């Protein structure tokens, strides 16, 4: 193994005349109940080799039969990325010898993949950036090898699980974009129930192809392949590190070796994978056990009809029509149930100008309370209509924002309707100027020393007076009017 590349100071791409060119190959595990080519169940964390059958084991005489749901999920992804869908595509055998690959070949797609030339929209700097996809194809996963001292243990539970391989065009321009791509793909496949895409469970994995070239150059530089990247953060770190490594070599007059490098997240470096004897000659040929896969109009029609509004489109709509900040919009669409909750609140709400406020309440109060309770949005004890009711009361001045937060906590805990809580506790906001003037007058009159000090220039005391008014009104005084009146009474 060559020495890992470790440097403390890493030149940034921006500082030199080099630009990075990045392409990603992402494997997404499809959310089917059974495997791609046989009916063994798909489950995470099952006891070793408990999810196999003769076909998974590659026993002599076994044959593959393809899972309809895997095709449907792949088609969904193809349609959602506006890919060209091949009406007739083929499976191909990809040959290599490895213990986690029982047949000595992987059933994949080569010449005639299911989808080509699609795109995925990333949210970058509050805007959408479109990244071209070269292809999306179907294949089966391999099992797992685990080193145990002098031997390796092989578990084939994962062997045969259906995957989509998503390959981008080499047009990601930074490590940040690469990480964003992963997030966007993660969001999309979860949005469409194509995959759980939990990177920790290995349900979404990526390899990065990284090269650099001089700014303005058309040709691509020599690229290296980075493997063993299993989180969004690692994508960014690993790609950044590789870009810097390549720039350092090229700046020093060296050449980039075309190689595969393994990312070591602990060390924060990559190292050359020991390249064994041969370059990989996969000897692809169409799998004779599997006739051409035909996608007909009926299937396409049903997929198209089943597609909901996609996250990117929703992002745009939230920003443009509901006035959400790009950050808030992005957070809401990061999780489809969250987005659907937002839609439900919006629907229950009168008018269409309250988007920002609704987003704010959801992201701060609601998510805060849910997180504290270890619940997700699907388990929210506060229904969208209820939240809408509460927000309405704040919007129309019935209660102050501060009181609103208290009412929210109570409705979250007890389920009592916000209106009822407000009634019962008598915490309606006091906005009557005359009534408030009386109180303000009383408060200032009762604190002459502080009034004098404030008049003399001690600004900090304003808060004291506000506090006194709040105390006198059990927090119900309308803060804006209170502030106004206090300024008047105090003289400044």
């Amino acid at each position, binding site marked *: 193994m060559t020495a890992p590349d470790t440097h403390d100071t890493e030149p940034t791409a921006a500082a030199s005349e080099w630009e990075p060119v990045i392409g990603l190959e992402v494997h997404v595990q499809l959310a089917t109940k059974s495997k791609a080519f046989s009916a063994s169940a798909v489950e995470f964390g099952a006891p070793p080799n408990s999810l196999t059958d003769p076909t998974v*084991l590659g026993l002599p005489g076994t044959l593959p039969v393809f*899972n309809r749901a895997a095709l449907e999920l792949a088609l969904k992804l193809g349609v959602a990325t506006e890919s060209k869908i091949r009406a007739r595509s083929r499976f191909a055998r990809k040959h290599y010898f490895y*213990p986690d690959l029982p047949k000595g070949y992987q059933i994949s797609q080569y010449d005639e993949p299911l989808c080509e030339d699609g795109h995925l929209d990333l949210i970058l700097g509050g805007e959408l950036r479109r990244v071209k996809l070269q292809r999306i194809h179907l294949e089966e996963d391999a099992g797992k090898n685990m080193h145990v001292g002098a031997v*390796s243990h092989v578990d084939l539970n994962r062997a045969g699980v259906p995957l989509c391989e998503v390959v981008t065009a080499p047009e990601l321009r930074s490590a940040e974009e690469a990480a964003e791509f992963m997030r966007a793909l993660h969001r999309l496949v979860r949005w469409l129930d194509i995959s759980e895409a939990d990177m920790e469970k290995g349900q979404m994995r990526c390899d990065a192809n990284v090269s650099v070239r001089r700014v303005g150059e058309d040709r691509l530089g020599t690229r290296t392949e980075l493997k063993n990247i299993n989180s969004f953060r690692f994508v960014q770190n690993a790609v950044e590190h590789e870009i810097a490594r390549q720039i350092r070599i090229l700046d020093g007059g060296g050449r980039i070796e075309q190689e595969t490098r393994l990312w070591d997240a602990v060390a924060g470096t990559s190292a*050359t994978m020991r390249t064994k004897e041969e370059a990989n000659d996969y000897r692809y040929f169409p799998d004779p056990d599997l*006739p051409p896969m*035909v996608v007909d109009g009926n299937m396409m029609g049903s997929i198209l009809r089943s597609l909901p509004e996609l996250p990117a489109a929703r992002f745009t709509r939230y920003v443009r029509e509901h006035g959400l900040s790009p950050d808030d919009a992005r957070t809401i669409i990061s999780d489809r149930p969250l987005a659907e909750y937002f839609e439900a609140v919006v629907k229950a709400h009168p008018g269409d100008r309250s988007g920002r406020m609704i987003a704010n309440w959801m992201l701060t109060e609601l998510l805060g309370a849910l997180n504290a309770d270890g619940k997700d949005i699907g388990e929210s004890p506060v229904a969208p209509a209820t939240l809408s009711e509460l927000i309405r009361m704040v919007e129309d001045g019935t209660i102050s924002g501060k009181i609103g937060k208290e009412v929210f906590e109570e409705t979250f805990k007890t389920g009592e309707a916000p209106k009822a809580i407000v009634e019962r506790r008598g915490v309606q906001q006091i906005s009557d100027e005359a009534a408030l003037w009386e109180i303000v007058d009383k408060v200032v009159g009762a604190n002459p020393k502080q009034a004098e000090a404030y008049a003399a220039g001690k600004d900090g005391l304003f808060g004291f007076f506000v506090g006194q008014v709040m105390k006198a009104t059990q927090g119900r005084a309308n803060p804006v009017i209170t502030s106004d009146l206090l300024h008047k009474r105090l003289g400044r």
Partner: protein
Amino acid sequence: MPILPRKEVEEIALLARLHLEPDEIEKMRVELGAILDHFTALAAVDTDVAPMTHAVPLELRLRPDVPEPSLPAEEAVRAAPAKEGQFFVVPAILPGDS
């Protein structure tokens, strides 16, 4: 009749994970050469007909996504020459692979 270069035979044997003794390699050079010589007839055929896939045209049949019981793990590893508990065992994969 052309004899294949030794290096080529060794490369193919490696791709196919076949250990060949030196005398096997020598024999293979001759035998493969003779067999491959017959393939030259193929090159002479100039055709743009679509490659045949099946005698009676077939389309891929799709299976419903219904899981069926798996083999018990003991059964899955039963025939393995080397096993430990419920795992298949192989010699250490060289470091550097993943």
